[in-house]
């Protein structure tokens, strides 16, 4: 997998800034942030509360408009697209996992996944079911496909949420505090699943989290403080990639 890693970043932030509020209450949350992320890699973005991690994630994933700077994803400038084009881009390329599981209470685990395939890509009922079952099996949830969120544990719910993000086989997977509501055993499983999405499926995975125990499971860790990246190498390229080229 690493052998196929492209030299160009799959997602690049160029001098991103973002403020909230107006007048005296205006506060700058992100200040001149540049970053490169590569496919097949799982990256952890760490930092204290209010450091701007989630805002950076929102900007990188096309959910929040930056005040200044550019986001280049798969060679396309996200924020020069129209809303409709950006929506289509997210539909084709982006998966999200949020802190709360945000699953529909009335739907089974299988239906939560099917819904994305059917509504997003117009997949037929049988095709959506086949793909949902395939992903649920990968996540170790095959036997619980018929259960609703109220019948699942926190870890299982988060696995369904991951399944919902992965059923589209996305190029990018953004996860905001995916382990914060879980015990470490369940949290570790969740991180491993995201790691597998990067290493086995070639996705660019970005996790925003506080939990330091995640560090040993990721390829790269970026620290953030007061809206800026700390000790960050703007010209970073994956080490293994360099080794291969040198070899």
């Amino acid at each position, binding site marked *: 997998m690493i052998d196929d890693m492209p030299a160009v970043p799959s997602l690049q932030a160029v001098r991103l800034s973002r403020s909230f509020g107006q007048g005296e209450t205006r506060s700058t949350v992100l200040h001149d942030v540049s970053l490169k992320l590569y496919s097949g890699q799982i990256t952890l973005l760490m930092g204290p509360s209010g450091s701007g991690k989630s805002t950076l994630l*929102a900007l990188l994933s096309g*959910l929040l408009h930056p005040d200044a700077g550019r986001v280049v994803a798969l060679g396309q400038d996200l924020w020069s697209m129209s809303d409709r084009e950006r929506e289509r881009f997210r539909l084709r390329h982006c998966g*999200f996992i949020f802190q709360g599981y945000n699953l*529909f209470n009335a739907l089974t685990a299988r239906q939560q996944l099917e819904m*994305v395939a059917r*509504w997003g890509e117009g997949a037929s009922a049988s095709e959506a079911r086949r793909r949902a079952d395939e992903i649920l099996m990968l996540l170790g949830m095959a036997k619980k496909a018929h259960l609703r969120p109220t019948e699942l544990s926190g870890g299982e719910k988060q696995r369904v949420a991951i399944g919902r993000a992965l059923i589209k086989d996305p190029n990018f997977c953004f996860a905001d505090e995916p382990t914060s509501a879980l015990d470490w055993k369940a949290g570790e499983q969740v991180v491993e699943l995201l790691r597998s999405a990067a290493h086995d499926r070639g996705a660019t995975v970005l996790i925003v989290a506080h939990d330091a125990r995640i560090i040993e499971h990721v390829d790269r860790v970026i620290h953030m403080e007061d809206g800026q990246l700390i000790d960050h190498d703007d010209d970073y390229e994956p080490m293994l990639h360099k080794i291969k080229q040198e070899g």
Partner: protein
Amino acid sequence: MASYSLATLWFERQRYLPGVLAVAFSALLIALQCGLLLGLFSITSIPIDHTHADVWMGAPKVLSVDLGRPIPESTLARMGVQPEIERCEPYLQGFAFWAKPGGGNELCMVIGSQLSPDSLGKIDKLTPQQCGLLAEEGTVIIDESDVKRLGVKGIGSTAEISGHSVRVVGTTRGLPSLAGPYVLCSIPTARKRLPIQQGQTTTYVLGRCRNATQAERVVERLHQNYSDVSAFTTGEFSRRTQLHWLLKTKAGIALGYAAALGLLVGAVVTSQTLYAATVASLREYAVLRALGIPRWRMALMVVSQSFWIGIIGIALAVPAGYSLAWAADRMMGVHIVSLPWWLQTSAAVVTLGMALLSGLFALRSLRQIEPATLLR
């Protein structure tokens, strides 16, 4: 789409119950109000619907059967010369005061018709035996539901109409009245007791065609040839009478207003139920928006839910409507609520439209979906 909507409705049935009940209430109210209206006003056209004429000819521009004015009896000939007509006869009808034996007056509707077996104006509830009894001058038959109202004890009782005595010789069943009880009798008995029908006059001339489909042609020709009378086919005159009562009485407006109010209440409750349910799922919808799923998919889900709320509400309302109509008929002793299939269908279509409209109105909740809020 349907499976997600139905799964949500079923799983969160307590949340959606007010909407379903509001739709059921609206559908029920519309059907029953209109059914009551229909039942009430079909009473006004009983003299037309329960006789055997194909053509009714009366005074010019007569608005309804009970508002007939005298026309010369000689106009019988006009009907008689029409080639399509095989039989014609006079028919007297008018309001008069019925003096109760115990004191007090009651407005009644006197109907005088020929009583032969092939009579056109004879109400079909009359038996041949009753027709025989009515041949005696001064005898009348009333409906059993009006016995009390007319202050008599039943068969054998006597009273007065316009100062002339009458004797009740029989009763009918299922001949309810609205403005005044129907008093059935012979033409001579009626003429003596209807002050405006003295002399050689009649209220209507009834005609029967050799073939009922020829009635329209006869009516058209009578209109062309005579401006001092008006003529209608049986169906036309029945509808004209009911429409007159519907439009001219406040009862029609009041019942229509209540039905509209029911619809409005249903719309507001359904819309609010859907709005609240959608707002409660905003975070889930926001995830779908983040995943790039277009907003119209979610809009379709909400509208689909409103459709199913409508269908379930209507499914509850239809049997309830028939049950309540049956109960009302039993309580009143006469058929008072009429619920034909087309009325139930119309009420269902209007209610379903209301439910869908409520769904569309609830879509404003989807404007609040903002995926970026999931990251704060």
